[in-house]
Every structure is written in C-alpha cells, then in structure tokens.
C-alpha cells in the first residue's frame, strides 16, 4: 500500500485532513457558543431569560387553567365583543379577520338554519329575511375554543403554535412560517392569516390581560354578561359557578378536541 508510507514532510494528506477536523470542530462549537446571544431568537424576545422583565414576576402559569363560558340565551348580538377584541389586539379592521365574532342563527320551518355574521356582528344585524316562517332565532358568539387537545398545535410543522401551561393556545408570531396548516386544521374556523405579517393569528384569551388578573376584553365589554371567564379547575371561579348552574355543551364534541369554551343553552343546530 503505497499511500500508507509517510511522505517526505512527515505527514500524509489523510493525517493532515484528520488533524484539521480535530482542531476545527471544537473551534466551531465554541464559536457557536459565543455567537448565541446574537441569535435571531433573542433578538425578537427581550424578556427571554429575565424573570422580572415580563412585569408580572409573581405570575405562575402552572397555578392557572383558563376557560370561558358563553350563555347563548343572554347574547343580544350587539357585537361589542368583536369590536373590543379588534381594538385590544390590533386585529385588522376589514370584515374578514376576527378573533371573535357573533353569528346569528335563524331556524326556518323546514328545520334549515341560516347563519349570518355581517362584519362579525360589529355593525349590528340587518332584519332577517324570513321566507316562510321562522321557528326560532338566536345569536352565538364564537372564538377560539382553546382546545385541551388542539388539532392546530398538532399540525404545526415548526412548533409555532402551542398550548401554554395555563391552558391557552397561542401563536409564536416570530416563529410562524405562515404555512396555513393550522388554519386548515381548526374545526372552528378560529384562525386567520394576518394580511400584513403573513403569520397565523387567533384569540389569545387576551393573554396579556389575564396574566395581570384582568378579564379578556370581550368579557369586559359584554353588556349582558353572556361571557364568563375564569379557572376551569378552581372551585371558586365564576366559570365553575357558570358550569354548575347551566347545562353545558361544547362545539363539535365528536372531534374530541376537548374545548375549554363552554356554551350554555346552546341550540343543537349550532355548528
């Protein structure tokens, strides 16, 4: 084997390459350690490591688990919730993007349901066009159900949407690649692609408010108390009382998404 013999210089080509790799690998790894603070992750989120930088150092997400109650029989369809949500969360004002919206169901005598939601209910509802008789009619506020078993989280290819420890499904806007899988996967139509940032957006339960002990904006402005916000598992919670005194249903229970938005007096026609 001719190439096994040492070269006149005392080192052959393979030994040279091997030595290069042996020297370069630790250098590269240590350089990576040095460069880490400038990584794009930390450029987006300042309070990455600082515990108190969030302004709520005492907030412990592990001691909370949030849910919402919606009493359909109390909703008057004023659209305040949808309008307040847009103001609180800087949702585009066009009539195509909503984190929460109000639907009006009109059940006709042939048992067919007409559902409309002009501009999410923000501008009110025109008088219903009733051809033939109307059996009953009602409003249904809709929003992200913050499923305990969320299909949107399952399909996200990059881990940009997730369930937090306090039971809220959030979107990491700086990590979302805008592939729209989650929008397709959501059985409740609760997600949309932001027209400017081209990332998925959805209801956050006003996470920035609830970590400060406030209620979501839609709950704050609901004039009839049709929306209730609280802890799912805590005995002393407005939501627990709501679930104790009402017959509760969730939307599309057959999908096993285990929603944490609980509906009282929900009609069977509601999809």
């Amino acid at each position, binding site marked *: *084997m001719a190439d096994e013999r040492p070269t006149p210089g005392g080192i052959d080509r393979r030994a040279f390459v*091997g030595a290069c*790799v042996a020297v370069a690998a630790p250098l*590269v*790894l240590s350089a*990576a350690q040095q*460069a*880490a603070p400038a*990584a*794009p*992750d*930390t450029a987006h*989120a300042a*309070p*990455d490591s600082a515990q108190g*930088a*969030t*302004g*709520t150092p005492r907030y412990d*997400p592990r001691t909370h688990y949030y849910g919402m109650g919606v009493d359909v*029989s*109390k*909703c*008057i369809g*004023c659209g*305040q919730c949808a309008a*307040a949500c847009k*103001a*609180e*969360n800087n949702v585009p004002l066009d009539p195509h993007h909503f984190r929460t919206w109000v639907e009006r*169901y*009109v059940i006709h005598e042939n048992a067919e349901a007409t559902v409309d939601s002009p501009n999410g209910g923000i501008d*009110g*509802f025109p008088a219903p066009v009733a051809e033939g*008789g*109307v059996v009953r*009619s*009602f*409003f249904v506020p809709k929003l992200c159900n913050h499923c305990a078993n969320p299909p949107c989280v399952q399909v996200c290819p990059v*881990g*940009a949407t*997730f369930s*937090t420890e306090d039971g809220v499904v*959030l979107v*990491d*806007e*700086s990590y979302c690649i805008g592939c729209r899988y989650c929008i397709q996967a959501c059985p409740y139509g609760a997600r949309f692609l932001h027209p400017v940032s081209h990332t998925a957006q959805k209801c*956050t339960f006003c*996470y*920035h*408010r609830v*970590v*400060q002990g*406030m209620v979501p904006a839609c709950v*704050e*402005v*609901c*004039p*009839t*108390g049709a929306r209730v916000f609280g802890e799912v598992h805590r005995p002393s919670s407005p939501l627990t009382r709501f679930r104790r005194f009402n017959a509760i249903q969730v939307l599309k229970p057959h999908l096993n998404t285990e929603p944490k938005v609980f509906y009282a007096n929900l009609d069977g026609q509601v999809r």
Partner: protein
Amino acid sequence: MARPFAPWRGFAAMPQQVRRLAVVIVLLVAAYFTARHFLVPRTFGEKGHYRAAAVDSIAVLPIHYAGREACAMCHPAEVAKKAGSFHRGVSCEACHGPEAAHTTDPIGHKPTAPRDRAFCVRCHAYDPARPTGFPQIDPVLHNPVRNCFTCHNPHDPTPPRPPETCAACHGEIARTKAVSPHAQLACTECHTADPRHAQAPRQFLPSKPASREFCGRCHASDAPPPAHLPDARPPKVDLATHGPRYVCWQCHYPHYPEAR
C-alpha cells in the same frame, strides 16, 4: 494486502474505507449539531415543543381596555348611579371605548361619549334573535329623531315616566299578537299586572293563566260568546276530550294560537 478489521488497534490501523467513512460521519454529525445550535431558538423545548420566550413576549403586549375597576377609582358617582340601574352590568368601556390611555393621561386622552341614536340601537333595536324580555324598541317608531339621552340617562336608563303600554317593552309579543286571531284581546284579558311592574319589572311579575278552564271561558264547547266581542266566533273544543292531559299552551302559543 488486506488486514483484518481490528478497531482496538486504533484509528490508523482501521481499513482505509472505514476511516474515510468515519471522517464523513463525524463531519455530518458536527454539521448537524452546529446547524441545530444556530437554527433552533434558545428557549425552544424548555416547556414543550415551542419557544418558551414567545409566551413572555405575548404577555407584555399593551393593554387597551383598563377595566371597570379602574374607572371606579376616579368616577365613584357615575359608578354608584350605574350600580343601581339596569345598566349595572354594562362596563363603562362598552360605551366609552377603550380607555387605558385615559387612566395614565387623564387630561390628554378624553373618553368619547356616544350621543347619537345609532349607538344605543346596537343593543336595543328590535331583533327576533334577541332574548325575550331584553328591552327592545323599533328605532323608526320610538320617538324618532330625538336623541336617546333626552329621556334616558345612560347611567340609569329607566325613563322618568313608566311606559304606558305593554308593547313599549314587549314589542316582540305585541307584534306577534297583532297578526294573530287574538289581536282583538288586550293583554289584560289574560294577564294582571301590578302597576309597579312598569318600574320594577322583575320584582312585580304579571300573572299568567294557570288552567285549561281559563282558555275554556271562550273556547269550551258550551262557552258563551265573549261579552265585549259579541261578533267573535272563537273555535270551540270539548275540554273533556281535546288533549285532556295537557294545558292549552303546550300546543297553542297564546299570542299566536293558530301558528302552524
């Protein structure tokens, strides 16, 4: 001459093709870990398959609605007035808009107060989908043109004079009854209302018929024609055989008894 494979003799003693492959594998593994170090965000995987820092960046988003408790700190009179009214459950910011800026800069940011009829009818215009009992008006017929606050103080909306007709509050039922065979009957034919019901509707509820015999006063086979409506020909049934196990309004909606 091929030597037998003997890794214990060291890297140099390995066959040439194994050494080449080993270098390539080491390079690939190093490249993988280097790329992963740069591409995967630092807090990814701390709490789950997501970037834990994203939660913090969402938690510090600005708040626009200050909450009704913040209003009460400076405006106790308005809050106290509202607390005793039918608008007690309505948040200040439901009408005045998001006012977190007003709490930090009370002079620079003044809340708006809606003054036109279009705002109030967002909640109070008649819509059959609204729950029964919720106060609703027909914006075209109800004191047209005048602003709502000329009669109703938004912080205590009960009007100074109680409504004189049932239809003022129960427009939904009045409209239904107006096109039904019972259109000629006054509400008081079947309901007796305490006069205080107009001021405090929930405390003083009107009476409702309780028995089949009440309907039978007009609709029993042997009932005389109603005294004040001598021309009326109400349909007659034999109370003993016509659905004896039920009260009438289980099948016939009294405000529209012939509803199909």
